[in-house]
């Protein structure tokens, strides 16, 4: 094996109450794809933040091409040739896509060449296989599109080590394919790629080596050929588990709780019609930007529809605000937990109780704090949210655990209709099974569920029926029995004729 380009020795990092990393040692060699896996909160993101100068380690050393270095800030990492796509995409909402990609580049001259900027951006985006206008301001981008921008930014740098922290968490199969092939190309060019993902199948497809972290400790680093799926999971969680939710038989469907006819939002989506029954799981599938999220937002009243009918339990309703949606028993779990889902600087318990606050109020609007904490605590146990207590601020949790808090928050509203936007984004294998089980259990209790997911295996595992969208239009609704990965993909990418024919 060639000499490592980047080496971490005995790295430790602790936050106020948690030891995120203890004594982690591993290395990256040029031209390899090195996967890092581990449960939520295992310390993966912390590790890469140390490599990129966002955090300073409490102990240990970092070697770059054999020489000890200290990476004091992100500029230092960039100067070395380390770039990262971070787990939570962070774009500059006021800048357009092209500027977002190139803002921190130092090799593009003193003056702006706007023409070249857009041309270069378009080329990069094309390479990623995404339809994205380089002139669009980033403020209107979906999470997946933001992720695309981040990827483009990292790719455009002349890097030696590229770190990807769950780059595919909100991508659909189509874009994932592109990304993986880009990773392989980079590898061929001699770039080392550090790849973090909870989707183990991807790892088996691209990685050369895989490192497992558990509880902030380094467990193993092995060539991919030397591990199996089961062994990897066992390393991650410390015991063997059954990673797939057993697909229970579809629940007996009850009455129609939600009926949507010809729903339109001018210029965004049109003609969405479906019925949703109690106890049913309806999945929305489609490519990034196919406007599935917008349908969800319309049903929840955030961006109200401009036409069409919605009836809940047989009664026509008008929903133009989230309050009204919630009155109808609709809950919406957003895909963007950082911006729309959770108040990061506030504690877990208050995030959980916010939408159902009315139920915790006594006379004079007084909050029943005991009840509130008890409920939060019960969710912490039930969803195994990793935190010392429910007073912890959400921002200090790992991505996956934040996702669980958000789930708890909406479960507590006891909804009739639950809209999940990317329900398992960034959740580890164990927890994903857990979330799926929770969803199925809810359905069993008679909750009607809409799940918007870019993860096709998840769609197939969860759904009773699948609604496929493409470019703001509903391409069709299928019973799960008639669905395969291929047929859904074909519809989503616009080869419907093909799909019909087959």
């Amino acid at each position, binding site marked *: 094996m060639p000499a490592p380009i980047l080496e971490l020795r005995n790295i430790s990092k602790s936050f106020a109450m948690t030891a995120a990393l203890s004594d982690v040692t591993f290395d990256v060699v040029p031209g390899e794809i090195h996967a890092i896996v581990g449960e939520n909160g295992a310390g993966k993101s912390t590790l890469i933040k140390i490599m990129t100068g966002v955090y300073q380690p409490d102990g240990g050393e970092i070697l770059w091409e054999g020489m000890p270095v200290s990476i004091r800030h992100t500029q230092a990492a960039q100067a070395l040739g380390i770039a990262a796509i971070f787990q939570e995409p962070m774009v*500059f909402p*006021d800048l357009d896509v092209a500027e977002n990609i190139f*803002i*921190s580049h130092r090799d593009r001259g*003193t003056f702006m060449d706007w023409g070249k900027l857009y041309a270069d951006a378009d080329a990069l985006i094309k390479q990623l296989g995404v339809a994205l206008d380089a002139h669009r301001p980033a403020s209107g981008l979906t999470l997946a599109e933001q992720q695309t921008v981040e990827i483009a930014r990292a790719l455009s740098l002349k890097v030696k080590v590229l770190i990807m922290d769950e780059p595919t968490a909100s991508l659909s199969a189509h874009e994932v394919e592109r990304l993986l092939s880009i990773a392989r190309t980079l590898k061929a060019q001699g770039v080392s790629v550090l790849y973090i993902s909870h989707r183990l199948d991807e790892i088996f497809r691209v990685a050369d080596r895989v490192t497992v972290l558990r509880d902030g400790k380094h467990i193993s680093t092995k060539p991919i050929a030397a591990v199996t799926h089961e062994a990897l999971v066992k390393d991650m969680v410390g015991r063997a588990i059954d990673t797939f939710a057993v697909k229970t038989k579809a629940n007996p469907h009850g009455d129609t709780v939600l009926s949507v006819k010809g729903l339109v939002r001018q210029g965004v989506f049109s003609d969405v019609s479906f019925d949703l029954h109690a106890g049913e799981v309806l999945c929305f599938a489609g490519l990034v930007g196919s406007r599935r999220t917008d349908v969800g937002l319309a049903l929840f009243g955030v961006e109200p529809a401009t036409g069409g009918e919605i009836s809940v339990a047989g009664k026509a309703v008008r929903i133009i605000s989230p309050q009204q949606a919630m009155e109808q028993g609709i809950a919406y779990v957003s895909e963007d937990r950082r911006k729309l889902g959770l108040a990061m600087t506030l504690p877990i318990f208050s995030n959980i109780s916010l939408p159902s606050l009315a139920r915790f109020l006594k006379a004079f609007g007084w909050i029943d704090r005991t009840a509130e904490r008890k409920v939060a605590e019960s969710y912490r146990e039930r969803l195994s949210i990793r935190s010392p207590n429910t007073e912890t601020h959400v921002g200090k949790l790992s991505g996956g655990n934040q996702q669980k808090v958000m789930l708890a928050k909406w479960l507590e509203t006891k909804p009739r209709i639950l809209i999940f936007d990317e329900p398992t984004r960034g959740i580890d294998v164990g927890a994903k099974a857990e979330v799926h089980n929770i969803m199925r259990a809810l359905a069993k209790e008679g909750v009607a569920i809409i799940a918007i997911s870019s993860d096709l295996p998840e769609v197939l595992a969860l759904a009773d029926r699948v609604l496929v969208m493409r470019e703001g239009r509903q391409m069709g609704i299928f019973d799960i029995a008639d669905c395969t990965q291929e047929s859904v993909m074909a519809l989503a990418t616009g080869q419907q004729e093909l799909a019909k024919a087959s």
Partner: protein
Amino acid sequence: MESLRKFHPQTLRLIALALVLVLTVVFFTSQIDNYFSPRMLNRITSSVAVILPIAIGQAIVVMTRNIDLSVGSLVGIVAYVMGGFIGQHQGINPAVFVVLCMLLGAFCGAINGVLVSYGRVPSIIVTLGTLALFRTYLVEYSEARTITTDSLPKWLVDLPSASVVEFGGFDIRVIVGLAVLAALVAWLALTRLRAARQFYAVGSNPDAAVFASINEARVVLIAFMISGAMAGLAGFIFLAKFGNITVVAGLGFELKSVAAVVVGGVNIFGGSGSIVGVVLGTVLVDVIDNSLIRWAVVSEFWREALLGLLIMLAVTADTLMTRSFGRLRGSQN
């Protein structure tokens, strides 16, 4: 309406603002005799000249999601200290003197900037503090003396009436030229200079700036230094224009500059705004102010109330217009 699509939302905002300005001028032309005249243009431009540089500096600071409340005290310090200095060094080259004024301002701005970016103290707290501290320094340093016109070199005292060019009764004064030059440089830099785009990035999302390897601290520091330098330039213009400088010089400029900046469409939460907007905003506020004191219909005591209401009206009109432009634009796809 097809043409609307070509415009960036920011540009729509500017068009709306320009329309509001035109409407204001049209209204006052109908109210005040001899209003639309070169003389009035002169009055307004030379009145804008003092506040415009400050507003530009303030805008850049605001773009980075900060605020500089110390600008008024900075103007006071520069006008006073440099006024005293030139009294002792009458022969100094005017250009050198302007640069020195801006350097003094930039130095004070750097104090703000270091505290904000490296001390991680919120800018409103830092500059509320230095607003008092700079002024206190001035009061202690001045020992209640006044800088008087007769201690200043003649070129400086005569500067406000000196023109760059003259045509048909209208002339561009040197001090106006200086302010416009500052605006022009800032505009070019913000649109053409790669590094300057980082002001927007930092203000748009400070956390993302860290992840994108932008040296946020340095960007913020530079923004404060620019704001200081601009206050220094304004201090120079203030000195030239008013000649008599006491320790109260520049009092209240902080709110004035913030008003000009926000009317000019700079997002108070950072990340967006343009120098063209700031110029329009500054001019708009000044036009309203200078027109009201010439409007015979309103008594002296109604002026302030009307000023506040008209600013509110202008901002509202601008917001509504921008929004309906946006809607027109949106309904085309």
